[in-house]
């Protein structure tokens, strides 16, 4: 081995890396981005679980109990409800993860050595969160009871033994067995579609540029719209076939319960496909190298879909600024819709929120794709 030649090669390589913006971005920007994201954005802690409260009694004591849940820091009271139906709706819509039901006979039971039935109902879709949240709920109730026995009793001049029991009924809806796979696998479909869909279309226009066939194509009478549609239709069909395959495997092989409507599923999947295919296509138009386009496609699809769509890390648990960013993560809407359709059997009305998000994305991306490709070299 020759030291001088070795140095010559290393020196040349250094010069070239420093002059190549893409290499520099990967070397310096990526680590920064990843650290920020992983450091601040994602966490496995569960806090501020959204809780709706149906306080049938609405007394000082019941409000005291409610405030304990909030004060613990684990829960966040988001809504006051007034009926069982309202609970059903709130959990169906995803307005809250859990509901606390305090009976009208709470104070009476507490002060007369009776049994107060407190119910907590949790949305079992996210098995992980639910598991932890139920633990918290038990903890809060236990502490409350102890406190009632001491302070409260004294304040009301009662004997500790005269304080009643709190019987905490924990109910889990939709995923009674709390199987995490019912929660994870529907989300996988989104990840797969996002990655594959965007990758496929990210190559289409850039491949023609790279191979040199584009210049001749744009010199013919074909219109830009015909090119776009003609190129995307095959990929749309492939994407739907892929999705169908994944969904069938999810239902029949992995036995994830499917409680919703097939039409809704097909419609929302088609919308999502439009979004991811469109993103890949836009990249393909902008970036004239196949490698470049597919690399960026991967970054723009896999990264947000796995990290920020609620697939791995619950969105509720992210700090507010990161949560705001997730509104831009198109996969978030589809993941949420998938889980709701599968486990909750949600209707279109229930899905209004995420569905709107998906429709907006699909419209914007479709419009951008239609105007992006110009039959010009400059």
């Amino acid at each position, binding site marked *: 081995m020759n030291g001088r*030649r070795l140095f*010559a090669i290393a020196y*040349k390589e250094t*010069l*070239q890396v420093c002059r190549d913006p893409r290499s520099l971005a990967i070397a310096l920007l990526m680590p920064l981005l990843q650290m920020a994201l992983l450091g601040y954005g994602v966490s496995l802690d569960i806090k501020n679980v959204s809780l709706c409260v149906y306080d049938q009694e609405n007394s000082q004591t019941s409000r005291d109990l409610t405030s304990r849940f909030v004060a613990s820091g684990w829960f966040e009271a988001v809504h006051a409800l007034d009926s069982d139906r309202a609970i059903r709706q709130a959990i169906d819509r995803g307005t809250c993860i859990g509901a606390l039901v305090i009976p009208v006979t709470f104070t009476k039971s507490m002060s007369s050595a009776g049994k107060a039935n407190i119910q907590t109902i949790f949305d079992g879709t996210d098995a992980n969160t639910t598991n932890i949240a139920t633990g918290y709920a038990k903890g809060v109730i236990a502490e409350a009871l102890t406190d009632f026995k001491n302070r409260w009793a004294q304040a009301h001049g009662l004997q500790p033994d005269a304080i009643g029991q709190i019987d905490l009924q924990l109910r889990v809806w939709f995923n009674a067995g709390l199987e995490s796979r019912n929660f994870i696998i529907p989300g996988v479909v989104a990840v797969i579609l996002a990655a594959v869909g965007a990758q496929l279309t990210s190559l289409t226009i850039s491949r023609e540029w790279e191979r040199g066939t584009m210049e001749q194509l744009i010199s013919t009478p074909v219109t830009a719209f015909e090119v776009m549609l003609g190129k995307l239709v095959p990929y749309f069909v492939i994407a739907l076939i892929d999705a169908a395959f994944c969904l069938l495997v999810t239902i029949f092989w992995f036995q994830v319960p499917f409680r919703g409507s097939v039409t809704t599923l097909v419609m929302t999947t088609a919308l999502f496909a439009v979004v991811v295919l469109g993103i890949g296509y836009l990249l393909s138009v902008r970036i004239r190298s196949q490698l470049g386009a597919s690399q960026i496609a991967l970054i723009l699809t896999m990264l947000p879909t796995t990290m920020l769509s609620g697939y791995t890390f619950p969105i509720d648990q992210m700090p507010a600024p990161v949560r705001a960013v997730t509104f831009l993560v198109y996969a978030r809407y589809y993941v949420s819709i998938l889980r709701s359709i599968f486990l909750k059997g949600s209707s279109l009305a229930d899905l209004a929120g995420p569905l709107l998000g998906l429709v907006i994305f699909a419209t914007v991306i479709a419009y951008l794709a239609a105007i992006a490709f110009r039959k010009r070299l400059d």
Partner: protein
Amino acid sequence: MDNLDPTPSAPTVQMQGLTKRFGTFVAVDDLDLTITKGEIVGFIGPNGAGKSTTLRMLCGLLRPSAGSAFVAGYDVARHPEDVRAHIGYMSQKFSLYSDLTVRENLQFFGGMYHVPRREMASRMAQAIATAGLEGREDALVATLAGGWKQRLALGCAILHRPPVLFLDEPTSGVEPEARRHFWDMIHNLAGSGVTILVSTHYMDEAEYCNRIALINAGKLVALGSPGELRGRELGGELFEISCNMLGAGLAKLRQAPGVIDAAIFGDKLHVLLRDSATAIGLPLLLSQGGIIAGSPNRISASLEDVFVQLVSRGHVEGAHP
């Protein structure tokens, strides 16, 4: 033969039965060629004829399937590293790093070829001066025009003063004035004893070489000086004749007796006659078809004409009939 023979006309590149096969495909077929010191020899032939493969074997990058080759006295199959230390290689389109400056390119190649450190400064200055790049040492190569890049590439290839120089498509697409300037430099190098092998598909470039090896489909089709090839290989006399209906005129001539071949060229017809005496009768022949023609002129053949004739006749240099 392990050392460079110092006698003036000693062969510096020798190929004997050089063959390269890729599976069943024969890329280079039984090449015999000897090049003496200070000669400029051109490997001329279309893309895919086997020129690049032959060049790679001579650089020690590919092992011959059969036959042998010696460059600067070293066996390319057994001592490829020694071969590479004694040759310069220049490819106009691929040698230089466009994201490095003129100076950085020269430094890099100086380092790769072990140019003695004390010589580097003076040789770099010389390369820059010959290329006409004084004042632009810190310019990125990407900003230079073709002619300049080409002279710089040549400068990089000879930093280590090799006795043998290989040029791969050295001047395609370059301005004619720059090409002539470049070839002046090549002739000067040859004059100082460097042996030069040029590989190109550009027939015109062949005229600058002392001898030409016409290559087609891996075989040596003809070997000789440009004048020799143009003179002897055509197999006929070439004439040009103008007429008012080129398409009809072409058809008529093709069927005429004594005509080996005819083609349209620009606004005239080129016709290859077995015997120049036939030329005088052509206008009359054409008028019988209602075509008005001028009198024919003798013209000299281009190397391309020669090549086409040789290839269509299936000629192979030195082959036994």
